[in-house]
């Protein structure tokens, strides 16, 4: 599919890299020539230098034949305008990044409709939602939810004292009375989709699916259930912090935001009346101690500087804060941070890319069982996908009689209100939502899992 990406900053270029890897024909538009030079050197894409809301630039980028137009510039207004123009000039679908809170209220629907946007994407809000999910369920490093909330996939790392260490999956299944499925294991750099006789080791990062209630039960049995965080310190008063605080406020959590810029502090107090806003430098350890870092349940580091976030979360860990979450934007730092034991990481870039990859795949496959949700987990090596099953050769056959491609696993089936953690005797019926875990495969359709 032909895709135009306007605005190739941090998020734009990450989206571009992911979509290029998917095999799409991509044209990048940016107003800085050096950005275009860099991008065309590294990726096999075409570059057009110019203003994304200029018709001539759009024509040069080939807007009239493109299947998807994505506007990712810094400015919400520019994104809206260029998407509007692109749509009028023949782009089939348009996605605009709109992140300002003023636009992300009740007026968004009206705007989307009249600008004919296929999607208004707010990376900050999506990141905040992910942070919120982790804070509600701090046992997990990350938590992936699917369209029905009752099936979740959580990631956590096995400590040395974990009961699961040294057992293989068959034994684990026999021992615990809960319905769950270990879908993928990361050991060092390698990723496995485990079979029944796969033995877990300490230090493994595992991803498992279970229904929400079973998950609580399981974690209780494993003694690793942690209470929902009730007292949270957020560093940096960015838009993400605002969205997160807003969500936490309504669930009765105490939120403290530390922000350096005084003006922004004043602004925040007016839009977040019940949060405590502290004006000060978050890198100042004295200040953090004074504000009760050692007593808080969770510490979320959201400053604009990745390195600062990493260092401060190390400091928080030293103060025995039960849960620290770090925002990291640069991919290379993510791997480094994991090496020094920082596991709970969110990356707005990655979240946005996942959404767009999923959207592009669904566009390519408008007839069959298209992808409804997509997560790239374990450093992008594994994909967790949600499909809606249509009547096909797959449906109505017992799973053990279906021959799947290697490195593919069915992680869960949602049928109406029921959640099924599948065994060999279960089957997929039309209308089910199926969670597929896949490594080293690119799935566009549910039927792609068949050999």
């Amino acid at each position: 599919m032909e895709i135009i990406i306007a605005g190739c900053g941090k998020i734009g270029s990450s989206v571009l890299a992911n979509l290029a890897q998917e095999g799409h024909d991509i044209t990048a538009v940016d107003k800085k020539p050096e950005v275009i030079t860099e991008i065309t050197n590294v990726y096999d894409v075409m570059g057009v230098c110019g203003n994304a809301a200029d018709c001539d630039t759009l024509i040069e980028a080939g807007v009239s034949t493109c299947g998807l137009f994505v506007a990712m510039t810094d400015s919400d207004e520019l994104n809206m305008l260029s998407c509007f123009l692109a749509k009028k000039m023949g782009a089939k679908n348009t996605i605009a990044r709109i992140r300002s809170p003023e636009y992300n209220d009740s007026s968004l629907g009206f705007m989307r409709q009249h600008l004919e946007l296929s999607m208004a994407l707010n990376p900050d809000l999506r990141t905040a939602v992910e942070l919120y999910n982790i804070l509600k369920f701090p046992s997990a490093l990350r938590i992936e939810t699917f369209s029905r909330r009752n099936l979740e996939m959580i990631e956590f790392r096995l400590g040395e004292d974990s009961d699961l260490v040294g057992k293989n999956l068959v034994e684990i299944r026999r021992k615990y009375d809960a319905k769950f499925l270990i879908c993928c294991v990361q050991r060092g750099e390698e990723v496995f989709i485990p079979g029944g006789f796969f033995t877990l080791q300490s230090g493994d990062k595992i991803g498992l699916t279970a229904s929400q209630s079973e998950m609580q039960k399981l974690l209780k049995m494993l003694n690793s259930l942690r209470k929902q965080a009730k007292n949270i310190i957020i560093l940096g008063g960015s838009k993400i912090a605002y969205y997160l605080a807003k969500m936490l406020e309504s669930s009765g959590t105490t939120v403290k935001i530390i922000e350096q810029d005084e003006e922004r502090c004043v602004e925040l107090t007016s839009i977040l009346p019940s949060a405590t806003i502290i004006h000060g430098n978050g890198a100042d350890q004295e200040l953090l101690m004074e504000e009760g870092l050692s007593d808080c349940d969770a510490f979320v580091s959201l400053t604009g500087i990745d390195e600062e976030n990493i260092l401060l979360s190390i400091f928080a860990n030293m103060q025995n804060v039960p849960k620290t979450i770090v925002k990291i934007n640069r991919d290379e730092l993510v791997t480094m941070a994991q090496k020094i034991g920082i596991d709970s990481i969110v990356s707005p870039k990655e979240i946005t890319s996942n959404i767009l990859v999923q959207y592009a795949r669904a566009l390519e496959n408008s007839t069959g069982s298209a992808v409804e949700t997509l997560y790239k987990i374990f450093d992008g090596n594994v994909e967790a996908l949600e499909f809606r099953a249509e009547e096909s050769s797959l449906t109505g056959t017992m799973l053990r009689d279906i021959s799947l491609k290697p490195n593919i696993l069915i992680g869960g089936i949602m049928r109406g209100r029921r959640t099924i953690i599948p065994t060999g005797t279960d089957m997929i019926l039309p209308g089910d939502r199926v969670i597929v875990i896949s490594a080293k495969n690119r799935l566009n359709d549910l039927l792609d899992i068949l050999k």
Partner: protein
Amino acid sequence: MNRKMVFHICGQMLLLEAVLLVLPLAVALIYREKCALSILATIAIAVVLGLLIMLVSKPKDTVIYSREGFVITALTWIFLSAIGALPFVISGEIPSYVDAFFETVSGFTTTGASILTDIEGMSKGLLFWRSFTHWVGGMGILVLVMAVMPMTTDRSIHIMRAEMPGPVVGKLVPRVRQTAKILYIIYIALTLLEIIMLLFGGMNLFEASVHAFGTAGTGGFGIKSDSIAGYNPYIQWVMTAFMLIFATNFNLYYLLLIRRFKAVFSSEELWVYLAIVFTSIGIIAINISPLYGSVEETFRHAAFQVMTIVSTSGFATTDFNLWPQLSRSLLFILMLIGGCAGSTGGGLKVSRVVMLFKSARRELKKMLHPRSVSTVRLEGKPVDDKTISGVGVYFAFFVAIQLAVFLLISFEPFDFETKLTSVVACFNNVGPGLGAVGPAGNYAGYTAFSKILLSVSMLFGRLEIYPIIFVLSPSVWLKKR
């Protein structure tokens, strides 16, 4: 540097050359010539050598940067010429290897400078191969590979940039592979069109394809010692038109295909190029009118000679060595300018000339108004300073290398004019120069040393200097990445 990847690709290129040699082999077999055996032997050598290189260098990672792109390009061209010269030597038609190498480099670089004194005595299979190298070298052999083989790396743009002529290489469509394919499809279509047009002029299929290859690559190898002079006016006009077409930026043809006519007609480079061509034709036609009978004949010779020089082909319908000084001087200047960027022509390229003049004007203005700020614009868009200074540096190298070669061959027993135009004609991939190397002469009189030097300067000109400089500089090879 990723040496394994570099040699791996070079190995692939040798295999490709073996495939390309099948075509002249077929021609030789059709005409039942002895040279078929020598071509077959060369194919065997290329396959064995190519496989050997590929076996020895299995790359662990396929990432290449611009440095590798340059080196791959330079090495590929050197290897291809070295192997491509073998059929001439093995068959004994060009006994000296240096001569054969000169002839092959001249072919691949689309120069068309020849050391042959008796062209009519050559076998048809080898004449076909000689002209076919023009066709392959014109659009670029690595670009051909990108079009037909899935490249293993995302960054093949570095290779394309090193091989395609012009100050900035842009893509037509997002994928390098797709871009290469489009370019080759346009190239093949235009070549076929020319073959058909030439067939109508009374040429047989062999003649028509050989001359079409020569025009398409803007090379200039013919099959007669008097080049095109013996053919009828229709054929001469057709070839004039196609030389004009092939020395135009190919991106414009793509824009025509996707119906963006406005973009084509507002192309600044195209207009400057046409202005240069038609002004020169006019001046030369007036200048040489006393020499020829009819107006048509005057214009035909003027147009053909201007096109053959501007497009850097090097055919001839008449010995322009005998023309008045004004015309000869003009042709000499046209040799240096060459065709458009993104075409198969050589020379400095029209777009660089335009940029040089514009930046010179800006510098002059800066001297008068030291605080003035202005940008150089090309095709209606501002050109960034990096590109401008890049063009300046390129021009400096362009002059320096030609002067250096000129100095090195000064011991040869030719006159000043011959030596100067030999260097310029080889470097700019034109072929015939003035004096003893004019359309009626050839390069056979040079010593082996000078022939190799001139071959290298042809490669310098075709690959636009940098790849050859890098492949010759030890620091590229010594340092580990």
